[in-house]
């Protein structure tokens, strides 16, 4: 089952070998692109293993969306850095990027054989159909804590992001930067611990 943590225990620093194992296994085997993979990693490094906290996950995810390049690799680097600083960042980045790159080279080399194989195509169609559900569910898994904590923000930000994309034809990074500026201008309510 997916959620095993009570969510209250403090983060535990992983060994570099454990970090490499989890990022290699889950970042290189999930269909549906970066966000779907991040959702799987969230289950593993936050809910199941508590290597980072919920706030650290949000920080890593949000900033990875504002970093040049591939968002998933930026997330893995940020999460690895949060757990084990520079060595963790490098291990997570290598573990998340090398196996899928080798696989991409192999599939490129044997493209004609694989794509002419009807069994491969059938399995792939099923995996891609599930990946659509993964993408939609991932959006909810990421948004849910913030919809609960800041419903008014969610009611404003989500429709604005959709409108800017569909009607305004703005790029994702422009929309995310606008969201960041809006967030800076509209401070969150103090958390209970911060209240004097």
């Amino acid at each position, binding site marked *: 089952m997916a959620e095993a943590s009570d969510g209250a225990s403090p983060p535990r620093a992983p060994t570099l070998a454990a970090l490499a194992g989890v990022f290699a296994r889950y970042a290189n085997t999930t269909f549906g692109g970066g966000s779907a993979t991040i959702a799987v990693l969230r289950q593993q490094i936050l809910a199941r293993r508590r290597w980072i906290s919920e706030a650290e996950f949000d920080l890593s995810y949000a900033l990875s969306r504002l970093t040049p390049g591939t968002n998933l690799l930026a997330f893995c680097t940020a999460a690895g850095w949060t757990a084990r600083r520079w060595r963790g960042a490098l291990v997570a980045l290598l573990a998340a990027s090398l196996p899928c790159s080798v696989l991409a080279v192999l599939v490129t080399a044997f493209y004609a054989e694989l794509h002419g194989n009807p069994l491969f195509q059938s399995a792939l169609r099923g995996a891609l159909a599930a990946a*659509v559900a993964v993408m939609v569910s991932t959006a909810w898994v990421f948004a849910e804590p913030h919809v609960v904590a800041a419903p008014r923000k969610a009611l404003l930000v989500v429709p604005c992001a959709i409108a800017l994309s569909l009607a305004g034809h703005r790029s994702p990074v422009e929309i995310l930067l606008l969201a960041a500026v809006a967030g800076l201008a509209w401070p969150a309510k103090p958390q209970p611990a911060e209240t004097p």
Partner: protein
Amino acid sequence: MTRFLLLLWIFGKSTFTSFAGLASLPEIRDELVAQRHWLTDEALNQAIVITRTTPGPVGVYVVSVGYMADGVSGALAGWLAMASPSLLVVLLVGYFGKRAQHPRVRSMLQCVVLASAALLVLAAIPIGRDALDGPLAIAIAVTALPLLVTRRLDTQWVIAAAAALSLVASLTGIAHA
């Protein structure tokens, strides 16, 4: 070596100035297809199809393009260009991490995550149009969604089960996914 460095430069300037997997594509197409004629549009499309058929980040298409352009050394240039921009996130996490409890920073993170979620749903629409091309594919997606939202099953089990179901349906001729 010269071709490796040139590919590293072309891929690097594309990935360091783009903010999502395929956002670097126009720059790479301009350099490798339109200007240098090292690749065709068909080969570039093939690289994109390959990233759809392999797990992991969409940005890995750069590795595939590099392999097409210059074999293993081209793939290495693609990997370096794909992976290296990610190290910049450490600067951002280092800066904002110290201020993560500040109400404005927390609000910024909330807004970025919410906007990301909205963009993710929008990104799923064209992929859904393409992937949900028959009753079995639609049934798989509709069944998988509540299982994933309620987190009753890990994502990988859902994807593996969907692939196996589609394969069995194809082998037995029950349905066309």
